[in-house]
């Protein structure tokens, strides 16, 4: 405390930090009173009293509710109780954080007083308090919104995965129960679930890898071509090449769905049948061809973003690099491999990773194109359903909420593992970590 003696010279050896801490543990604000910070102390005391009066009943109900999920059917609504319970836990966590800060504050200031520091006057205290708490005014609205629209729903979804909530067992008529890992177990052992899960899962992986890699490869290829100094009308070609990004995705997907239609689609009517004869390809009723069509559609939709991104990076690579390589007699392939590619990938790695995770959950394309269909025998998902569209169907078509939540949880874990693993490898994350 270098600046402490500036205020006063009185060293107060009797003042005891431990006592201040203990008082604050007993009741928030008591330690502050002992430190003679009356305004702060009374505010804290009022806050704690208000907290106890208004919230203790709710928290009690919430904790009881989340443990038992209700005991009397119809009177107790398991879903309400679960939500109350989660809100209670969140409130308790914030209250605990506040309490911890209160104790720390009491201890810190008691120490300062012991070393001779004297509290500023009322006006200065208020100003200091405003300075210190301004940042919380900034973040609180966002924090509250985030808790209720993102954190609470995620926690709720996670909890549902461990209950038995479906069409036949739904509140308020029935009570829900905690079933542990039962849902995950049936996903792996009940034949219908297991078959569906593995076929959907493997298609999700193939879809993610192939569609995204096509997008990136095509985007890179076209960006390199368009960056060639000999190409004329660059602006014109760029605009056309970027067009699929500008058109709203759902419009393009629905247009493609009509174009690929088995009966009246232009692809069968105007291209396949005139060229190859026969009765056309079953684009929407044969899973194999639907998958091919989907990969084509997603490549069409997704490459322009990569193209635009790479074009920007390519223009920023210094000409000196290429000139130096030419002096050394490098071939075009060598220049591409050793200069262009590393530059481009380095600058955009995080955005490319996001492309993979986006496609993993690319609900729009799968669902709007053919609603995940066509139907397949022996499983309860369509032939082109990916995990996320399967979850959608389980939730809104068959009301199998618990299973949907369990699969959501698996998706979340996979995505975050992948993302953490990849982000750690990219340098931009490391740079951020140093701050």
């Amino acid at each position, binding site marked *: 405390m270098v600046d402490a003696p500036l205020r006063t010279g009185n060293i107060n050896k009797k003042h005891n930090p431990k006592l201040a801490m203990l008082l604050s543990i007993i009741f928030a604000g008591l330690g502050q009173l002992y430190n003679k910070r009356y305004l702060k102390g009374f505010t804290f005391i009022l806050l704690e009293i208000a907290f106890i009066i208004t919230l203790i009943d709710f928290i009690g109900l919430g904790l009881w509710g989340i443990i038992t999920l209700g005991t009397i059917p119809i009177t107790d609504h398991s879903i309400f109780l679960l939500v109350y319970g989660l809100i209670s836990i969140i409130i308790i966590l914030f209250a605990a954080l506040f309490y911890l800060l209160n104790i720390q504050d009491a201890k810190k200031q008691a120490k300062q007083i012991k070393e001779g520091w004297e509290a500023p006057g009322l006006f200065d205290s208020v100003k200091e308090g405003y300075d210190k708490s301004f940042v919380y005014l900034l973040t609180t*609205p966002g924090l509250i919104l985030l808790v209720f629209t993102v954190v609470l729903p995620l926690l709720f979804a996670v909890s549902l995965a461990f209950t038995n909530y479906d069409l036949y067992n739904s509140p308020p008529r029935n009570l829900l129960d905690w079933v542990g890992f039962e849902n995950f177990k049936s996903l792996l052992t009940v034949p219908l679930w297991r078959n569906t899960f593995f076929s959907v899962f493997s298609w999700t992986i193939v879809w993610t890898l192939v569609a995204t890699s096509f997008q990136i490869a095509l985007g890179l290829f076209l960006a390199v071509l368009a960056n060639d100094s000999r190409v004329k009308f660059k602006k014109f070609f760029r605009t056309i090449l970027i067009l699929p990004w500008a058109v*709203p995705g759902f419009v393009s997907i629905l247009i493609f769905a009509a*174009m690929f239609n088995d009966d009246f689609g232009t692809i069968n009517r105007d291209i396949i049948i005139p060229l190859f004869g026969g009765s056309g390809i079953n684009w929407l009723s044969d899973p194999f061809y639907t998958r091919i069509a989907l990969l084509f559609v997603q490549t069409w939709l997704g490459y322009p973003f990569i193209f635009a991104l790479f074009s920007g990076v390519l223009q920023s690579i210094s000409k000196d690099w290429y000139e130096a390589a030419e002096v050394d007699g490098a071939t075009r392939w060598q220049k591409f491999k050793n200069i262009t590619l590393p530059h481009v990938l380095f600058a955009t790695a995080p955005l490319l990773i996001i492309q993979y995770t986006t496609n993993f959950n690319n609900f729009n394309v799968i669902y709007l194109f053919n609603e995940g269909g066509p139907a397949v025998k022996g499983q309860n998902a369509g032939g082109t359903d990916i995990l996320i569209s399967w979850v959608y169907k389980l939730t809104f078509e068959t009301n199998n909420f618990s299973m949907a939540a369990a699969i959501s949880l698996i998706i979340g874990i996979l995505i975050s593992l992948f993302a953490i693993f990849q982000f750690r490898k990219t340098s931009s994350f490391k740079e951020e970590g140093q701050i």
Partner: protein
Amino acid sequence: MNRKLKNTIEMIGVYSVFGFMSILILYPLLWAFGMSLNEGTSLYSSSIIPENWSLAHYQWLFTDPNSNYVNWYRNSMIVSGSNAVLSVIMTSLVAYAFSRYKFVGRKAGLYTFLILQMFPAMMAMVALYILLNLIGLLDTLSGLILIYVGGQIPFNAWLVKGYLDTIPRELDESARIDGAGHLTVFVKIILPLAKPILAVVALFNFMTPLFDFLLPSIILHSQKNYTIALGLFNFINDQFSNNFTRFAAGAMLIAIPVSIIYLFLQKYLISGLTSGGTKG
């Protein structure tokens, strides 16, 4: 000579790639545009170059009592507009705090944002549906807006914070010395300098609800409340072959203005993403 020939062949190759891509890109769009101008409603008798030009479908969308198109358009504008405005306010406040202040939970908050970004809102769709039902916001536009505004915070707060970090601190420090308060610094110094990234955030958050299908389909149930993506989907989903030409007309009215805006602004979008995005 040899070199010149090689050059020519290469250029022919490049241009034919571009030509082929142009066909792949333009054909579906022109096809849909052509469909929207066909007179009948059946795809069997329609062709890309209509025999009888007609604006009947466009007229139907706006005048027929069975058409909710104007409603959908207005709903989409309400949702997109509110989301853009509210998101900019919310995100800039949070990003300013994370960029300039030291406070309890700053580091934990940053990591939380990073992790939450990875979980798409749709992972929680079961929960959102049930929760909104509990508080009676199911089938309302405000419920939808609320979810959008909350869900965008983690990603955009990072984006804007990354940008604010590049604004020199000396600027706000010298303003503080001149007696400016916290709010003054924020409004008079930070906000004007952050305009480019805030424009990107506004545009993103205007476009996301406009294109989104999943969340509206979970939350909105009555035809009157549909947003445009949901409306158009259900429109053709009922009887695909019979309504496609009408769908095409409705789709053109949203696709053409949006595409023009995008083509004008794509440069800023990309630079916004690479400047804030790659840094975190």
